[in-house]
Every structure is written in structure tokens, then in C-alpha cells.
């Protein structure tokens, strides 16, 4: 039994990756929840918006790299994020003007707009593939590790190594900053409160002098920000491929629904619930268990509940369970 090594292995293979993935999902789910709460529909185009935003970040990163601009140890992509957000905002506001605004004027019910967003999804989908292609793209640069496995072993004298990638640290820190900023904005500023008021009661917000078109505009810009940041962090941490981003739609929606649609706190909680379950169910626990259990109980198999190919099944299972047991989600969202 060697609990210290077990803990290090657990941190290295489960806690850190799940924290990182959870932060990425939380940012994505926050975007879904904002669109759901304020624009009143489940946005199927969310994953592809993410792919589009990240694509712009990648293009600007390459531009900066070719110009020799870099951030030293940090990825150049961080510099490109503001441009990505601007580009995505333009795309979203343009789509809103051309597509969603029409349905808003008709007072179209959510189910109609959801189908519309499905169409928008296909268009974004094609747009990204048309510009950047379907292949995997790499755009990470700078210092790769905060803690390297070998250095960690030398430092502590433990058998197990611990790696902590720059992108993982960056993801967690950025997510915390963004979430704090968003909550401050929604609860303390006039514009943020007007958005909550609009979400609560559209007509009354209008009669209080809140300009709905402005609320919609600010929402899209915030969503563009969340989506671009989440997408870039995911791409830096793992890799960028448009199809992967489309697939992210499922865990992101699962996170938003598990947490409670329309509840920002819920989106964050849901993101971590999904991420930890996905990682925990698809991780081969043998290594940790060998350290943690007495010799007589040591497992012979890999102790992997599901192969990693099935990780989306985990999101689905949690989604189904939550909808059966607690349809409003952990934090009492609006779906009943």
C-alpha cells in the first residue's frame, strides 16, 4: 500500500484532466444557459460557433507567429482571443440580424427557433470547413509544462510522476476569472440586471424601458466571448478539429441540463459533474488501485468501466438519469 503514490497518480490522471475538461465544459455550458435563459432557445449551433471562434483565433495565431509576435512562455493564441471574440460576435450578430430577429418578431415558440438553430449549425459547420478544412490543426506554442513528470519525481522522490501542462493551468485560471467576471456582470451591473429582468419577464422589461434588442445584442457578444475562450482553451489543451467541436455539443448540453438550464451556477456545477464522471468512468483505475489497496486485493484487469470511445455515452447516461430523477437539474433551472 502506498497512498501517497496513489494520490499522485489520481491527481495526474483524473483530477487535473477532469478539472481542465470541466472548466472547458462549464464555459461552454454557460453560453448555452445564457442563450436559453435570455434568448429562450436551446442553441444547437453552439458547438459549431465554438469551432468558428476557435478557427479565427487559430488564423490570427498563425498570423502573429508569422510576424514573430509571441507571448514568451504563454501560448500566442491568448493574444488572438480578442480578435476571435470580435469575429465571432460579428458572425453571431449578423446571424441574429438575418435569421433570429425574424423569428423574434413573429414571437416564434422555442421549438421553432431550436430547429432554426439546427439550420444555422449546418451553415456554421460548412463555413468553418470551407475556410480551414476538416483536418486537425495545431496552434499551441510557448512553454508546454508547468510541472514535468521527471522533475516532479526528482523533487519528491516518489515513484509516480505528476505533469501539469501550461494549458491546463491556463484553462483553470481563465475559467475562474471569466466566471467571476460574468457573475459580477449579471448581478451588479445595470446591463446585467436588465438581462436578468428580460429573462424573467420580457414584456415588463420592455415596459420598464429596457431595450430588448440591446439585451439580445449584449447576450450574443457575451456568448461569443464564452464560446471563443472555451473553444481556444479546449483546442490548446487537446487539439482543434471542427468535428470534435460539433461533438462537444452533447457534453455541453448535458452539463447545462444537469446543472439546471437557465442557471449560471448550475452550468458550472454541471460542467464539472459531466467532466468528472466522463474521466472517472473511462479511466483505467488499475494503477491507482495497485498503490491504494493491500497486495492481496490488487486487481488483475485494467478496472476501466468503459472504453474511451464510449465517453459520450456517459454524458447521455447522466442526462437520462437527471431528467428522470430531477428534471429541473441540480440548481433548479427552468426546465420541468
Amino acid at each position, binding site marked *: 500500500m502506498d497512498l501517497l503514490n496513489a494520490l499522485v497518480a489520481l491527481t495526474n490522471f483524473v483530477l487535473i484532466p477532469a478539472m481542465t475538461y470541466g472548466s472547458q465544459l462549464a464555459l461552454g455550458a454557460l453560453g448555452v444557459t445564457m442563450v436559453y435563459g435570455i434568448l429562450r432557445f436551446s442553441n444547437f449551433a453552439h458547438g459549431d460557433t465554438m469551432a468558428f471562434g476557435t478557427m479565427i483565433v487559430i488564423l490570427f495565431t498563425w498570423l502573429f507567429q508569422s510576424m514573430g509576435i509571441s507571448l514568451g512562455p504563454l501560448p500566442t493564441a491568448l493574444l488572438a482571443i480578442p480578435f476571435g471574440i470580435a469575429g465571432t460576435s460579428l458572425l453571431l450578430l449578423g446571424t441574429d440580424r438575418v435569421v433570429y430577429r425574424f*423569428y423574434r418578431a413573429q414571437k416564434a*415558440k422555442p421549438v421553432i427557433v431550436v430547429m432554426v438553430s439546427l439550420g444555422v449549425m449546418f451553415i456554421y459547420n460548412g463555413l468553418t470547413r470551407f475556410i480551414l478544412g476538416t483536418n486537425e490543426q495545431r496552434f499551441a506554442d510557448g512553454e508546454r509544462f508547468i510541472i514535468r513528470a521527471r522533475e516532479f519525481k526528482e523533487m519528491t522522490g516518489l515513484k509516480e510522476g505528476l505533469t501539469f501542462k501550461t494549458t491546463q493551468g491556463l484553462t483553470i485560471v481563465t475559467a475562474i476569472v471569466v466566471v467571476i467576471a460574468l457573475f459580477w456582470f449579471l448581478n451588479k451591473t445595470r446591463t446585467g440586471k436588465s438581462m436578468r429582468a428580460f429573462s424573467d419577464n420580457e414584456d415588463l422589461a420592455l*415596459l420598464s424601458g*429596457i431595450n430588448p434588442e440591446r439585451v439580445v445584442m449584449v447576450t450574443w457578444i457575451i456568448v461569443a466571448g464564452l464560446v471563443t475562450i472555451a473553444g481556444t482553451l479546449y483546442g490548446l489543451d487537446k487539439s482543434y478539429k471542427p468535428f470534435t467541436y460539433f461533438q462537444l455539443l452533447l457534453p455541453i448540453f448535458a452539463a447545462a441540463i444537469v446543472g439546471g*438550464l437557465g442557471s449560471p451556477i448550475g452550468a458550472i456545477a454541471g460542467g464539472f459533474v459531466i467532466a468528472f464522471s466522463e474521466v472517472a468512468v473511462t479511466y483505467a483505475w488499475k494503477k491507482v488501485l495497485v498503490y491504494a489497496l493491500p497486495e492481496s486485493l490488487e486487481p488483475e484487469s485494467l478496472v476501466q468501466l468503459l472504453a474511451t470511445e464510449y465517453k459520450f455515452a456517459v454524458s447521455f447516461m447522466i442526462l437520462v438519469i437527471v431528467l428522470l430523477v430531477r428534471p429541473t437539474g441540480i440548481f433548479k433551472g*427552468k426546465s420541468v
Partner: protein
Amino acid sequence: MSNSPYDDHGNKDLSLGNAKGMGEIDTTKHSGPTHESAGEPFLIGANMTGGYGKHGPDILHDCTIAVEKGEIAVIVGPNGAGKSTAMKATFGMLNLRKGHVTLDGVDITGLTPQDRVARGMGFVPQNNNIFTSMTVEENLEMGAFLRTDDYRPIIEQVYDLFPILKEKRNQPAGELSGGQRQQVAVGRALMTQPKVLLLDEPTAGVSPIVMDELFDRIIEVARSGISILMVEQNAKQALDIADKGYVLVQGANAHTGTGKSLMADPEVRASFLGG
């Protein structure tokens, strides 16, 4: 409305979208021009004919509603007479085919409801008239959204008018009792410091004691110089405090007069006030 291609086709799944709290007012419409129009009551909806939606049937037929400065006008009538509709028409929530609306010497027929708020009209709808998920104080703050000056003193005025709200200032408005909710709703509308306050059945669903209390407050508001146009189910009590009363039947003016004269009118008494 169920024939609209944009309705939910029977799908009530809330995970698809947040249908609760959806508005009915067309927010994409823009205001038309206004022009001076002197010599009319402070607020008047004159000869209004029209209905909801672009092609909806007419609900109002040549209906006229007016209120003078600092007075209380009450609209009463049987169910389905178009009382609320008449009031909403003065607020621009209807497509008027005929007639015009004038406020303080300006013809505002072409204005959207939101622009009428900016011109000094306050409206308290019958239902969904508060932000349930926000605190009492946030409700009042939202009411003051149009104000660019310091709205603190106005909040204090509202708290003076409704002391219970000060006590509950940090509580979500959705957790309050029916009477308290109505106070939040009226308080929210007062935050813009309107010239005219439109109240759609402010006493619906509250107990008689709370109703008297609310009417007292409404009189107090009127005394401060704000005109009040009110739709009421409790016709007797409402006409008691009214300077002017309108009895509507099937979207048209049936009887008009001072509150007292209507109370004394045997025909009105027989048909609407229960003898």
C-alpha cells in the same frame, strides 16, 4: 393564434427553450411620428376601433376613454367587455384601425408602448407584473431603467408609500404575498415618475382588507398629481374613488359620467352593480 406557423405545435418541452416569460409585445416595431394636438383631455384614447394582431377581429368599437390631470378614471363593465383592451389601446398594445391617442397635448397614436413609457405613461399589467426572480429593490431599480439621474430618492418615496416593501427589499419578489406583489408592481411603475399610471385590475385576487389599503394608496398617488386610469372588477369600490367612470359593453362606451353619477344611475346599478 394557434394557426400561426410559429407556435409550439403542441410541444411544451421546456428543455428546448425558456418559453416562460416570453413577451407578447412586438419589439421590432418602430414608433411613427407624433404631432401637437391641443385642446383635449390630459390623456385620451378617442374613437378607438381595433383588435390584437395584424388581422385580429375588432374588439373595440368607437370607444373613447379619457382622464384629466391628477384624476382617477375607472373602466368597469361585464366580463369580456374589452375593459383591459381599451386601456391597452391607449398604451399602444393594439392595432388601432381608427381613432387616436393624445397625451399632454401630443398625439402619440404612432408610438410603441416602450416609447410611451419614455413619454410619461406607466403601465401595471394584470398578470406577470413583477420580476419574480429579482429582489424587491432590483424590481424598483429596473423600473428606473430609463432614468439617467440618481433614482435613490424615488425609491425612498416608493418605500414611504409602501413601507412593507422597505422591509422586504432584499427578498425575491416572487416570494411575496399577492397584495405585496401588487405593491411592488405599482412601485415599479412609479419609478419612472409617470404622468399617467395605467392599472389593470390592481386588486385582482387580493383580500378585501388589502383591496381597501391598495385603493387608499392609489388615491394618494393621484393626489400627488399623477393621473390614474384603472380597470376594475370591484366596480362599486372603484367607482367610489373615481372622478370619472366608463362603463363598457362589447367594446363600446355604454355609460360615461362621474363615479357618483354612475353609482346613482339605476340602469348601471341594475346591470353591473348588482342592484
